[in-house]
């Protein structure tokens, strides 16, 4: 090697070898910090999840056949009677207690715990109805406005203002939606506390998510596909119908998954507009006209959790109910989200570009 080459090599060694130990240390520290933060978040989530699954599981599952607490899943909430009879300790919901007492003459002394017996079936049904209706309304309105914003509107200040207000709407606290829904739908429209008032209130709340996500996924469709359609003599609506909406659907569904989770989970918007703390009849029972379905209040899982954890005296029996409800609620949200994800994956496969 020539002398000048050796010099070059030495200077290269100087710059390439042995980064200063200090910067290496900082590197490691920062990295550890990030790692720690992530672990902390994971730990919190896991704690909550395990707690709910463990404690709720005790309520929902049984050790013998059919392994599920059928009463919990199919009955209405009832008062729990706890009593001793012939030396044995019984826990019974109100209706079971009444039939149990039929054959017994002697008086039974019981301790009663409100809301701690029976099941949560009306809440499950109510939540499912609320979610379904709110999502139908929200997706219809949301997709319509997204089509307008993405395909038809003229870019300019007004459009920007509309977009900004939609974004702001997403930041409004849910209790404000609840109060707005009460003022608008319950009082001004005279719908009273009803399913339909709840639908619209919840729909308004998730609209911003659905509009912005739908618009985003429509804009993500290559302009080339629209151009190709126009060049074949298609009108704008034909193009949107055949070449934009179908391919934007996976994206719209993704946004609706987030929407479903929010709609199902919100308590504040429905507590003034749609939810009853206790209702004996299921939503579809005792209707005079079919559309009365819309104009009646329902029980709902999140509101039920709120009621059993905040509105009644706490004890070991209510705590069982709380965890059981939370567990079922978690399961339902996860199931809805999972099915939307599966649907989205199927659509993605079909409409891949």
């Amino acid at each position, binding site marked *: 090697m020539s002398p000048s080459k050796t010099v070059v090599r030495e200077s290269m060694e100087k710059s390439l070898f042995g980064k200063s130990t200090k910067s290496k240390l900082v590197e490691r520290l920062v990295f550890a910090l990030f790692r720690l933060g992530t672990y902390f978040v994971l730990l919190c989530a896991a704690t909550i999840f395990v707690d709910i699954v463990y404690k709720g599981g005790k309520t929902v599952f049984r050790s013998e056949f059919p392994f599920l607490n059928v009463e919990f899943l199919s009955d209405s909430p009832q008062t729990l009677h706890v009593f001793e009879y012939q030396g044995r300790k019984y826990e019974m919901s109100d209706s079971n207690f009444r039939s149990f007492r039929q054959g017994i003459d002697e008086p039974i002394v019981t301790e009663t715990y409100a809301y701690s017996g029976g099941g949560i079936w009306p809440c499950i049904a109510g939540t499912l109805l609320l979610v379904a209706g709110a999502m139908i309304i929200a997706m219809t309105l949301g997709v319509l406005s997204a089509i307008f914003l993405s395909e038809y509107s*003229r*870019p300019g200040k007004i459009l920007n203002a509309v977009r900004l207000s939609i974004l702001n709407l997403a930041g409004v606290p849910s209790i404000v939606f609840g109060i707005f829904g009460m003022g608008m739908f319950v009082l001004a429209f005279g719908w009273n506390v009803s399913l339909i008032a709840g639908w619209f209130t919840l729909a308004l709340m998730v609209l911003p998510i659905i509009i912005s996500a739908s618009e985003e996924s429509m804009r993500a469709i*290559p302009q*080339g*596909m629209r*151009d*190709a*359609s*126009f*060049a*074949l*003599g*298609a*009108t704008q609506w*034909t193009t949107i119908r*055949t*070449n934009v909406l179908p*391919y934007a659907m996976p994206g719209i569904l993704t946004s609706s998954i987030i929407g479903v989770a929010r709609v199902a989970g919100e308590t504040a918007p429905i507590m003034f507009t749609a939810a009853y703390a206790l209702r004996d009849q299921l939503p579809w029972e005792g209707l005079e006209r079919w559309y009365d379905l819309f104009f009646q209040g329902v029980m709902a899982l999140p509101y039920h959790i709120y009621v059993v954890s905040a509105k009644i005296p706490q004890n070991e029996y209510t705590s069982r109910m709380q965890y059981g409800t939370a567990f079922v609620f978690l399961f339902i949200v996860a199931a809805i989200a999972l099915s939307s994800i599966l649907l989205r994956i199927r659509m993605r496969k*079909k*409409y*891949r*570009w």
Partner: protein
Amino acid sequence: MDTPAVESHRGDRNPSLIRISDFDFSYGDKQALFDINMDIAEHEVTAFIGPSGCGKSTLLRCINRMNDLIESARIDRGKVEVNGLDIYDERVDATELRKRIGMVFQKSNPFPKSIYENVIYGLRIQGINRKSELDETVERCLKGAALWEEVKDRLDTSGLSLSGGQQQRLCIARAMAVGPDVLLMDEPCSALDPVATAKIEELIHELKNDYTIVIVTHNMQQAARVSDRTAFFYMGNLIEMNATDQIFMSPDKEQTEAYISGRFG
């Protein structure tokens, strides 16, 4: 050796099909085309060449009114006539016009549908659903686009499963299905490899028997190979339009010579 054995490339022109006269065009405040005058003859391949942003694609998109879709696009002056009819007449329905003047784009853009559905998209949206007619169209157009042999056994697979060159030929077949007289091609080979490009060029050479073709290309050799006439654009002006031999062997204008010989700027 009494008569030339090779066809003359500078012979008589076919009759004019598209006439563009005194045409000024702007996007917003920015004028994109200045006083364009040209005749495009039927059953010829006319190539538009020029550096990026010279207005060649803009003019192409004026011929089937694709520029209508751009908000700020505006015609300031002049006419585009097809068969003597001003296509910017307010009575002209742009969607009907586009059925007569098809377009193939730079990036092959088949719909994420089956090959079959891609070809008949233009018919489906017109409400044509008769199976026999659709089958016939698919076969005719795929044959016309030299794709039939390659895909006839898998018409129900996605158009996106084809290679780039096949996709572009599918797009040509799709454009043919609505029965146009004119095919506008906006850099149809710019994303293709040389073999796929050669196939498209062969196809263009075949298609000019049935269609009038206008092709925008960045590739000067491509213009030289496939076109009968070449128009050179620079900064929104039509600098020179002439028989392709003439343009590439002895152009009239210095700018043209500088561009085609790569001595530009």
